[in-house]
């Protein structure tokens, strides 16, 4: 019996050997060595000198690191929050048995399978001063009066119709789809008439000249170039998480909604009291994956390159790289390693928080 155990263990070791080797050399050894380097003064060429905690103490006094730390946290929190809320909202809207959903799924998925390099280059073009973002904003602002009129007319017509129907004793909720279609058509026709008679007109004086990249300006305390990266990443990750939610929504029993509807719950109440609680485990997963992913932001920062000033886009991951391979300076591997350990600790905190609160949730 003991011999059989032994043979099995030998087999297991053989099967695991390639994996164990890479794990030991490129992970365990690498992790320990980074940890060791973080207590030394090292430049990749001469042997490391032990300096104790000096690197860690110096880090939080260095403005660039503090900026990187702030940027990383702001980026991770905003992107995770935005993508989770948007993905859940979209999934709830799209949670229908639909013919042809595969087609839309393909379309929605494409932004998230592409390489960050290609997507970032495309977004760099979009963010140029004469790029499409500024062009589209100018277009929307130009036609804002028309769009606002159409929206106002739509709400007005819808309200009138709903009141009329309810007077007749029919229970309709505010966004009844059939009535909304009528309102939409009427609002479109009404707006066209008003435009034709010159009651509303597109603005003619719109100039949008936003500088997205080469600027040190901030908005809400976050540098504008970082906002550019935030927008880009929310944009490319929302579809993925939305599909994750859509898969999760398929598992929510339909009769729960029916029961809620019979009890008179509005669609919003159904969403708030049925969908959201049932999806809580999935939401924890989405948030954890989102945070872990966003804390590592590097590619976009590197690809923005000289287009944006360093302190307006730097993140922890880029700080580490930039100190190991600085352009025209001695590598500061000690500082870089200390920053890397801080990054690893942040990730660990996220994971521990998820273990603490995420798994035990049963959904109710």
């Amino acid at each position, binding site marked *: 019996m003991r011999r059989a*155990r032994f043979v*099995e263990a030998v*087999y*297991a*070791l053989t*099967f*695991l050997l*390639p994996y164990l080797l890479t*794990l030991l*050399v*490129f992970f365990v*050894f*690498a*992790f320990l*060595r980074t940890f060791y*380097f973080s207590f030394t003064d090292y430049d*990749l060429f001469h042997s490391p000198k032990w300096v104790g905690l000096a690197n860690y103490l110096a880090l939080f006094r260095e403005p660039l690191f503090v900026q990187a730390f702030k940027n990383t946290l702001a980026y991770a929190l905003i992107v995770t929050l935005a993508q989770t809320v948007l993905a859940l909202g979209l999934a709830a*809207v*799209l949670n229908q048995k*639909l013919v042809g959903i595969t087609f839309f*799924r393909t379309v*929605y998925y*494409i*932004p998230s*399978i*592409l*390489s*960050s*390099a*290609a*997507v970032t*280059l*495309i977004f*760099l*073009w*979009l963010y*140029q001063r*004469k790029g*499409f973002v500024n*062009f589209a904003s100018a277009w929307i602002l130009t036609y804002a009066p028309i769009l606002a009129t159409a929206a106002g007319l739509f709400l007005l017509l819808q309200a009138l119709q709903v009141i009329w129907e309810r007077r007749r004793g029919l229970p309709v909720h505010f966004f009844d*789809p*059939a009535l909304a*279609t009528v309102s939409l058509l009427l609002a479109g026709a009404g707006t066209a008439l008003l435009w034709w008679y010159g009651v509303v007109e597109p603005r003619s004086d719109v100039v949008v000249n936003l500088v997205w990249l080469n600027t040190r300006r901030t908005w809400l305390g976050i540098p504008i170039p970082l906002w550019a990266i935030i927008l880009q990443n929310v944009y490319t990750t929302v*579809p993925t998480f939305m*599909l*994750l939610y859509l898969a999760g929504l398929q598992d929510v029993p339909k009769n729960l909604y029916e029961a809620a509807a019979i009890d008179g719950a509005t669609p919003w109440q159904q969403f708030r009291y049925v969908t959201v609680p049932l999806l809580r485990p999935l939401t924890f*997963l989405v948030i954890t994956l989102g945070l872990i992913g966003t804390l*590592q932001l590097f*590619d976009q920062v*590197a*690809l923005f*390159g*000289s287009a944006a000033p360093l302190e307006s886009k730097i993140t922890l991951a880029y700080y*580490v*790289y930039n100190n*190991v391979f600085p352009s025209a300076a001695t590598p500061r591997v000690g500082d870089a*390693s200390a920053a*890397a350990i801080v990054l*690893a600790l942040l*990730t660990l905190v996220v994971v521990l928080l998820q273990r603490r609160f995420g798994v035990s949730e049963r959904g109710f």
Partner: protein
Amino acid sequence: MRRRWARAGWIYGTLLFFGLIFIGPFYVSFLASLKDNPLEWPFRFRFAQVSPLNWRAAWKLGLAGAGDPWLGGFAPGAKVDLEVTYFVPQGASAEPPRVRIPRRRAGAGLGAVVDEPFAADYAKVGALEVVARVPGTLAEKPGTFYRYRIRIEYPGSGPRIDRLPMDLELSRSAFRAGVRFVSATLAPNRIERRGRVASWDSLTPGLVGYVMKNYVRVFKESKSLSTGQSLFWRWTVNSFFVALVKVITNLLFAAMAGYALARMRFPGKHLLFLLMLFTMMVPGQVLFISNYLVLRDGIFGLSRLFGAPTLLNSLWGLILSGVVGSSAVFIMKQFFESIPKEIEEAALIDGASPAQTFFRVVLPMATPALGALTILVFQGTWNEFFWPLVVLTSPQDIYTLPIGLLSFRNAYGQVGDWGLILAGAFLSMVPIIVLFVVFQRYFIEGVSFSGLKG
């Protein structure tokens, strides 16, 4: 009933709207990648490269220039005819524009180092011939539209030349008198000097050479300094090589490790599992310093035995640290745990060794998981940016596509040549999009597999 239809209408409308929002930026930047000036303001959705008239002209001119309707060119024996229309206001003298074949180098960046023959040294420009005179008005001024025919020939023998650039220049006096360029069989690439000069990058572009000019440039203008080969092509080959090798090693080693973790008993199993979960969460930036040193010194000096003092700047070095990833092992482990044990146990009882059982019985059953894993590893490797950036620095021939795109961005972004950068970005996406459309099912499965990992 009515309500259901309306509801479906709204749902599909919303789906379409969001589809438009998600794909829109890619669509407009693709259009921009076709343009002569991707930063033109205001942005236009209709421009020369999307007009069928120009497609036809480009096709014919490519055929006339080098017998190649797709990519065009200028070869010995070519007779190229182009018709251009100028407006001459009443009272002004009908002075024809001057034809010039400029010596223009291809691009500014990586392509400028390569010496190419100039069409100017071989082309013979014939006299302008007036084909038609039609009275008419331009901007409410009466006058005459002159249609000229320009003939350019390639007499004698010589090399085949890629491009036949041409400038049509009006004299200052004619321009001041109100003579204007109106149109041509093939729309010019640029109008320069406030309208006095109409300029073509190539008169004989061929269909692809005209519509997808920037895409052709991506291949032609990025030449390796050492071999003269197309760098972009080289990067594509490198990317494929790395991705394929990593797919094979990951499939094999991850299946083996996953199987051991799922089915075999050995000391330290739980610890190993925890370590695996931990590795999946640690950022690459925490590990790369040591890994860089390991590659630099050739795996503790071991690679010296095989004659390689360092593994930096080599694709094998890039592959080595990723021959088997923790998430791949995790996916395989989850899969093996989900399939019934009975079949393997039957094989074992029949006297097969664990190795035989694994390769003959278990692996064939694992096709769905292996399929999903193939896609995930291929996509992950194809898109990987950080680790190749650390390992591959010089020469440029050794880059993979994402790093190549970064070097494009650095070389052409400064001069604002966005057409080339965008074209490179789109070209690099093609294999992944093809893969995605063909193996969509596996992509979705991959997400649900890796979605399990929390």
